[in-house]
C-alpha cells in the first residue's frame, strides 16, 4: 500500500516536471497487431531518423512499454517536444496456441503468452500517466470491439484527450467511415503507417490534440 502511494507520487512529480518543460507524454494504445509500433516508428523516422521498436506479423510483439524521448515535431512553424510511449496491445484473451500457428515451439509460445499478459497489465497501469493518447485501430476490422470501447471509456473517465487513428488504409478492405460511425464524438484520422499515406493530416490532428492536453 505504502509502496503504491510512493510510486504514484513519484509518477505525478515526473509528469509535472515533463509538462513544465513543455514535453507531452503521448501514449499509443489499441488492440494487438493494429500498428501502434509501426506508427510510433513512422513518427520517429520522420523526426529522428530512427525506429522506436520492432514490429512483427505475430500478435503481441510489443510486450513491454517502450519510450522515445525528445521527439521534436514541427508543424506550421510550431515545435512541440514529445515523449512517445508505445504500449503493448490490450486484449481480453491470450492463447499460446495462436502463436504456435506462426511456427513457434510450445515453450516459446507459452513464454510469449506470459509476457503478453504482463504487458497488458503494464499498459493499463500506464493509462494514468499520459497527457494525450493516440488510439490506433485497424481500419480493416470491426471497430465495435469491447476492448476499443473500454480503452476510450477509460481515457474519457481520466479526462485524457484522445485521437483515433485508423491504420492500414493502404489495404482495400479498410473502412474509415465505419470507425467514424462507431466513435462519432472523436477525431478520426485514416493513415497508413507502412506507406506514410496521410501523415500530414495526422500531424495536423496531433497538434489539435495537444492543445486539448495543455
Amino acid at each position, binding site marked *: 500500500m505504502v509502496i503504491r502511494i510512493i510510486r504514484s507520487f513519484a509518477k505525478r512529480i515526473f509528469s509535472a516536471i515533463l509538462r513544465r518543460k513543455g514535453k507531452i507524454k503521448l501514449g499509443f494504445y489499441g488492440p494487438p497487431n493494429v500498428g501502434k509500433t509501426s506508427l510510433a516508428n513512422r513518427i520517429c523516422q520522420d523526426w529522428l531518423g530512427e525506429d522506436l521498436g520492432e514490429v512483427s506479423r505475430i500478435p503481441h510483439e510489443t510486450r513491454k512499454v517502450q519510450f522515445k524521448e525528445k521527439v521534436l515535431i514541427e508543424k506550421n512553424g510550431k515545435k512541440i517536444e514529445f515523449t512517445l510511449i508505445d504500449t503493448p496491445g*490490450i*486484449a*481480453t*484473451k*491470450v*492463447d499460446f496456441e495462436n502463436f504456435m500457428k506462426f511456427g513457434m515451439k510450445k515453450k516459446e509460445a*507459452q513464454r510469449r*503468452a*506470459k509476457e503478453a*499478459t*504482463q504487458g*497488458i*497489465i503494464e499498459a*493499463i497501469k500506464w*493509462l494514468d500517466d499520459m497527457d494525450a493518447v493516440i488510439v490506433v485501430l485497424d481500419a480493416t476490422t*470491426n471497430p*465495435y*470491439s*469491447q476492448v476499443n*470501447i*473500454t480503452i476510450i*471509456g*477509460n481515457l*474519457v*473517465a481520466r479526462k485524457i484527450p484522445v485521437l483515433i487513428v485508423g491504420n492500414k488504409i493502404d489495404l482495400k478492405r479498410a473502412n474509415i467511415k465505419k470507425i467514424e460511425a*462507431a466513435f*462519432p464524438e472523436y477525431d478520426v484520422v485514416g493513415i497508413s503507417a507502412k506507406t506514410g499515406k496521410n501523415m500530414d493530416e495526422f500531424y495536423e490532428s496531433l497538434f489539435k490534440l495537444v492543445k486539448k492536453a495543455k
Partner: protein
Amino acid sequence: MVRKIKSKKRTSSSTKDLTIHFMPYSEIAHDNTIEKIKKILGIVLQNKIIILQGRLKPEEETKLIENTMTLIGNIKGFQGIEIATLSNDSEHRGLFENIRRNIARILVGERDVITIIGPASIVKEIKKNPKKIELMLRRR
C-alpha cells in the same frame, strides 16, 4: 454410419455443457469493483456464459481485464474472456428523452444495456455491430 452416430452424441454432450447464467443488475448493484469482478470471474471459471443486465464502468472493465490476465497461465486451460456490451447509445434522441434516461441511470443504473461475458475457451468470438451481437462458440 458409426461415425454419424458418434458425431450426434458429441453434439448432444456439448449442448449439455453450455450454461448461460443470467445476472440481474440487482446482484451486483451494491458490490464494489473487487466484489463484482470476483463474482464475474467465479462464474466464468465454471465455464458459464454470463448475460449481465447492465454494464461495468470503464475502470471496472480494465480491472476485469487485469485480473483476467493474472489468471491466464495460473489456471489450467483458462485463456481469458470474451466480452461485449449492447446498448442503445448510438440512437439519436431528443433532449427530453436524454434527460429522462440520465435520471433513470442515476436512480436504477443502466438496465437497458446487456453485457455478455464468457470464457474464451468456449466463446470463440463475439461479433458486434451497434444493434446486434453474434456469439461464435467453439466446437468441443
